[in-house]
Structures are given as C-alpha cells and as structure tokens.
C-alpha cells in the first residue's frame, strides 16, 4: 500500500505522505513553477518532474535521492522543422515542445527506457533515464497526423502511454485528438485502433474516423493488460481485446463526460471515473463532486460522494488527476480548484488533504 503521493500543480510539486494513518502535505519542490507531470520510476527509484515555466518553457528535472535534490536533464525537443518542400503531414503544427504531458517507464526488462507524451503530439523515448531523447518519427510522420487537432489545447497532445507488462515492445498511446495508437515493435510501426468509438462532436460522416477520436485518457489493467478503459470526450469506452474493439459504456452516472479514469491493478472490471458536465460548462453535475465506480466491467456504477464536497463545488478532475495505488484500495484525486482527496477504502469514503492548493495537473502514487 502506497504512503506517498506526488501532486503536479500550478505552483510546484507537492508531496503528500501518510504518517500515523493520516495523509498530510509534507513538502513542496519547485515552488511557484507549474509542474505538468511527475513519475517515480519503480525500476530504479528515480523521480522525474516535468515543469512548464511560464516564461522559459518546458523543463525536465530528475532526482536520484528520493527527492532531496534535483538535476535538470535533457528535454525532449523536436528536430528542425522541414521547409515548405519537406514532408510534413500537419504544417499548421509547430515543431516546438509546448508541454510534457505524460511520462511512463519502459518495461522491467529495459532499465533506463522512458516514454514521454507531449503537446504538440510528439511521442519521445529515452534509453538513458532522460539524459537524451528521440522523437518517435514513425508516429510523428504518419500521414494521418494531418487530421489530428487540439482538445483543450491549441495542438494535439499525447497524454497516455501504456507499456504492456508482458511485452515491453507493445506500446499504446492516447492522443487528444488523434485516437488510440498501438505499436508492437517499440514504436517502429503504428496502427490506430478505435473500432467502436464514435465522436459526437464531428459531422456524421466523420463520426467514426479513427484519427479524430478524443480519448481524454486511456488506461490498461496492469494485471490484465488486454483490458483497457477510455474516458472519451463523449463517453466511456472499454476494450477487452487489446484495443481491437471498443464497447460504449452507457451506464455511467451521473454523466458521461469527464477526463479521468483509473483501473484496478488486478481486476479489470473495476474502474473509477470523475464525471462532470461536458464542454460547454465543465463543472460538477449539480455542483457536487462525485466518483463513479464500476465493479462489473461497466454494467453498473456506484456514485461515491462520502467526504467529497456536495455544495457549491466547481472542482473538475483533469485526466491525470485520479490515481489508484498498487493495492487497489487507495485512491487519490486532485482538482482544478486546488482540492486533493484520498480514499483508503476504494472510493467508499474520502478525506480532504488540502482544499486551498494550486490547480492540480497530475496525481501519482510515488
């Protein structure tokens, strides 16, 4: 059971720890600086913090002493942008790193391998723990990238990178807005797999176009990696066959819109969501913060609210802000209005860790 949580926030990296049974804020690193994503690499204990400085751009820091000190490491950067005659599927998108949106460790059998998902849509990989990075050109150069577009940001972004624990060459990425892509050869070739997804925000003739689907987040059950969940812009989808086919889950309550999803580490039928009113409004339904949990693969949902604000709440839970630990019992959730809650009973009840924090961009057990 985890005893530490990292919150990436608008004003720094906030560490939450459990001591004597209570979760408390223990420390803040990078005070004042936006932290868009964090990662604790379970293979070597290194901690990574992706910053996005308001003036000076994205930066990446690494700690090898459990957060006591930090070193700036290399940044995933785009190669020189081709001129008008060069091959470029989407000339409207600048070849400039705008944000590190996702950090994922490679497989247990490939120490030092990291994956970084970024805005404006590039996937990067490192084989030396972030000392250098390479743009995964076979995905960046796909002609379908012409159709990708921004969802919430000006340009498309990769927010989900899933490495199959059975086969570290199998990598699945989620793109807003660009669908779900799967590689079985460590990124050398890619296939977009969205069969069963649909987009209500597109004209009817493009409703099922794979390249414009907006999976807000994609997660796979670590103990059953062919079982994936997606909180999509217009609903929840589930795959039980490694992203080959997706089923629409319409039983979710109180609404189908949301950003976040967490799946139980061993039970693929158990997943949690943070529903809200969709894009024209983006507030909690009835101004009440709730978590929706299914334990039967999406056939039914419990709406959990014990300990969460039930009056005048405007908290939205972004896509990286609902996490479950390796036990499947401890959940942590952070909001746009600076609240953080933890549940020690799989979401049945929640306790407030902080209600006046900065806007929270990522929540990860560490």
């Amino acid at each position, binding site marked *: 059971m985890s005893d530490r949580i990292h919150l990436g926030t608008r004003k720094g990296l906030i560490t939450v720890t459990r001591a004597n049974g209570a979760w408390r804020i223990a420390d803040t690193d990078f005070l*004042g600086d936006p932290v868009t994503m964090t990662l604790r690499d379970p293979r070597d204990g290194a901690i990574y913090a992706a910053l996005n*400085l*308001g*003036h*000076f*751009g994205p*930066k990446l820091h690494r700690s090898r002493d459990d957060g006591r000190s930090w070193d*700036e490491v290399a*940044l995933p*950067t*785009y*190669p*020189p*942008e081709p001129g008008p005659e060069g091959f470029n599927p989407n000339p409207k998108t*600048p*070849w*400039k*790193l705008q944000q590190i949106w996702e950090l994922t460790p490679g497989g247990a059998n490939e120490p030092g391998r990291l994956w970084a998902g970024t805005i404006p849509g590039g996937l990067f990989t490192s084989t030396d723990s972030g000392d250098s990075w390479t743009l995964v050109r076979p995905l960046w150069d796909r002609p379908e990238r012409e159709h990708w577009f921004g969802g919430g940001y000006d340009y498309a972004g990769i927010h989900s990178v899933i490495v199959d624990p059975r086969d570290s060459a199998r990598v699945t990425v989620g793109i807003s807005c660009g669908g779900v892509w799967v590689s079985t050869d460590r990124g050398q070739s890619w296939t977009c797999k969205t069969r069963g997804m649909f987009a209500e925000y597109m004209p009817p003739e493009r409703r099922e176009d794979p390249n414009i689907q907006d999976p807000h987040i994609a997660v796979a059950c670590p103990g059953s990696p062919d079982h994936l969940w997606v909180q999509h812009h217009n609903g929840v989808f589930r795959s039980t066959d490694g992203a080959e086919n997706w089923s629409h889950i319409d039983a979710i309550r109180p609404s189908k819109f949301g950003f976040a999803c967490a799946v139980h580490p061993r039970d693929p039928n158990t997943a949690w969501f943070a529903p809200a009113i969709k894009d024209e409004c983006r507030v909690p339904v009835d101004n009440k913060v709730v978590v929706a949990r299914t334990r039967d693969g999406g056939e039914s949902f419990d709406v959990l609210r014990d300990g969460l604000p039930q009056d005048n709440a405007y908290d939205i839970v972004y896509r990286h802000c609902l996490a479950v630990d390796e036990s499947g019992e401890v959940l942590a959730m952070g909001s746009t209005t600076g609240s953080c809650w933890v549940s020690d009973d799989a979401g049945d009840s929640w306790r407030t860790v902080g209600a006046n924090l900065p806007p929270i961009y990522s929540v990860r057990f560490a």
Partner: protein
Amino acid sequence: MPHVSFTSHLTRHLDAEPGDAEGATVRETLESVFAANPRLRSYICDEQGALRKHVNVFVAGRPVADREGLTDAVAHTDEVHVMQALSGG
C-alpha cells in the same frame, strides 16, 4: 563588444551573470552567450532557434524585430537585455 544582462527571474533557475559577448547580430551575440553557458539556450530560445514566446530581448532599448531569425543588428557598444514578458507569468 556588446554587453548582455538577464532578468533576475532567470537566476531562480540557473546562473545567468551579465557580461560581455561577441557578435554583430542578436543571433551571434546570444550564441556567444550560449557557448559559455549552454543551459541558458533552452530558457531563451525554443528548439527551432526562435525567442520563446514570453521572452523579450532588447538591443539598445529597442525590442528585437526578428524574433525568429534574430537578425537584428547589434553594435559593439550596445547593451542587450534579456527580459521576461509580462505575459506568460
């Protein structure tokens, strides 16, 4: 030779001491600064070599006109100031 100074905001993140530089354009001047302090590059320019959106550079009190190519001329007596924009905070 031109003299280059930096917003104190930068020193929250890394060393950025004012000093003399070399070059007849903004690009050349900044390259001479980056040669001595490589980490500064990614704070001031993006990977395509343009000034970051929320960084301003002034030459003799004038904001540089060519933020992409950095071709503005720099005289050897000029003061070059690297500032943060008020946007981006």
